[in-house]
């Protein structure tokens, strides 16, 4: 049974208190967490905090806000890409962001050194447009009520409602949220690693050994599985359907930009390789009697599926940013599930496990070659 620390404060206060004490005692140099950026609508962004004052009640930091302005996995990669962090930094991230970061570390795009990873059992996040239109604040009471009951608010991202991996895998500290009926007054931090235990030393609370997977969490699993099936069944299959869906793509490549797994600094689809000579356009025109511009929208989406589906963590950023309302994340999650099942691979689960396309077994998949 995992070791935990029960704190007699509400979850938000407890987490803020932990982060404040980490900064005050100098045990971490900074904290990566969501925070207010100001503005009438209450803009929110990931920020690196060094001032403990940000973590008082009504301070600038909002570590448990159900919102994802960017996948923090990608941000952690940027912080640690050139060199590992010089001193300890705590990061409060969602489980899928943590999975994305692990996938990036496997691709040598970041380092876990000096990072204290804090995550929580996750009740999903609201889509970006909810945040941009100031609707986040009014939904928060409803959100936390749903989290307490271990259900999901209907307005969170569809991919969150279909997410089966809402318990973080590689967090040093896991904040129990989903199904915790008393999270307004009490909070349990699970200390999954020695590092996690070390950093909370001296924090007021009672030690305990408890199961993270409560009945509520198991129930939530069931509900999510049912929604997932429904969501995946709604994906139109067939070439014509696919062309219709991706025919809406305007080629802005925003999905690629926000995708934490798409880390290439020069994407093939942005490169000169993807620009055709005039005679190619001419021959296509002659043959087809027309050509949609920009070209390569279906190619881009299928190509991206081939490149990232094996590691897709299902965070839902791509759907959120798509100006053409393509359910990118639903399609990627569905395809991702089948490709990941093929290789028996769970992205973000184990940092030492090799990415399936970077390795092989001598004896396998005999039926593939004929």
């Amino acid at each position, binding site marked *: 049974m995992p070791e935990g620390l029960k704190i007699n404060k509400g979850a938000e206060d407890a987490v803020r208190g932990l982060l404040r004490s980490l900064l005050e005692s100098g045990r971490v140099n900074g904290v990566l967490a969501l925070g207010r950026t100001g503005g009438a609508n209450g803009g929110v962004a990931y920020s690196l905090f060094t001032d403990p004052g940000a973590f008082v009640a009504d301070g600038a930091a909002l570590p448990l806000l159900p919102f994802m302005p960017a996948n923090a996995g990608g941000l952690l990669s940027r912080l640690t890409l050139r060199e590992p962090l010089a001193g300890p930094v705590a990061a409060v991230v969602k489980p899928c962001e943590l999975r994305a970061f692990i996938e990036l570390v496997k691709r040598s795009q970041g380092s876990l050194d000096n990072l204290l990873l804090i995550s929580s059992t996750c009740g999903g996040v609201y889509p970006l447009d909810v945040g941009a239109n100031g609707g986040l604040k009014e939904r928060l009471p409803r959100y936390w009520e749903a989290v307490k009951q271990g259900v999901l608010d209907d307005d969170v991202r569809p991919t969150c409602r279909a997410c089966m991996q809402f318990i973080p895998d590689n967090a040093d500290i896991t904040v129990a949220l989903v199904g915790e009926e008393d999270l307004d007054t009490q909070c349990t931090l699970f200390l999954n690693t020695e590092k996690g235990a070390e950093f909370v030393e001296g924090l007021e609370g009672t030690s305990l050994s408890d199961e993270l997977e409560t009945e509520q969490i198991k129930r939530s699993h069931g509900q999510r599985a049912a929604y997932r099936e429904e969501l995946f069944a709604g994906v139109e299959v067939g070439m014509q359907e696919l062309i219709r869906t991706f025919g809406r793509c305007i080629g802005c490549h925003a999905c690629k930009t926000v995708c934490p797994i798409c880390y290439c600094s020069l994407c093939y689809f942005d490169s000169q390789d993807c620009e055709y000579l005039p005679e190619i356009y001419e021959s296509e025109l002659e043959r087809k009697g027309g050509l949609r511009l920009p070209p390569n929208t279906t190619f881009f989406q299928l190509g991206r599926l081939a490149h990232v589906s094996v590691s897709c963590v299902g965070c839902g950023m791509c759907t959120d940013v798509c100006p053409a309302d393509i359910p990118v994340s639903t399609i990627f999650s569905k395809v991702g599930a*089948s490709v990941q099942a093929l290789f028996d691979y769970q992205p973000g689960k184990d940092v030492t496990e090799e990415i399936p396309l970077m390795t092989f077994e001598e004896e396998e998949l005999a039926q593939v070659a004929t």
Partner: protein
Amino acid sequence: MEKQEFTPKIVGFLCNWCSYTAADTAGVSRLQMPPSVMVVRVMCSGRVDPLFVLSAFLRGADGVLVAGCWPGQCHYQKGNLHARRRAAMLKSIFETLGLEMGDRFRLSWVSASEAPRFAEVAKGFTEEVEQLGPSSIWDEVFL
């Protein structure tokens, strides 16, 4: 009647060290083969990026053949084993999205000494694709 006139366009990515040599020998030995496979020589089946396959299909290929050395015989030790994983992944994507490309894609092992086998693969795959008819993507403008 139209079906008989249909000669599929198959893009064949052949490994320089085995399948390409086999295809060459098959030609020199005047083995009977349909003229459907358009050959792209690659240095290894492991060089075939999934994007090559997708690009061929989306530009209207009726079939795509990737041929390399038998497992254990790769000139670069393991390129073909990587190719096998990628092929499995592509098939899984095609299957999940219900795309006809799944039936129009083939990975085959043909060693340098197997010219008759190459002729057989080319013939067999061409027949399969003929059965499927022309690719529905051939004159799609939304690609």
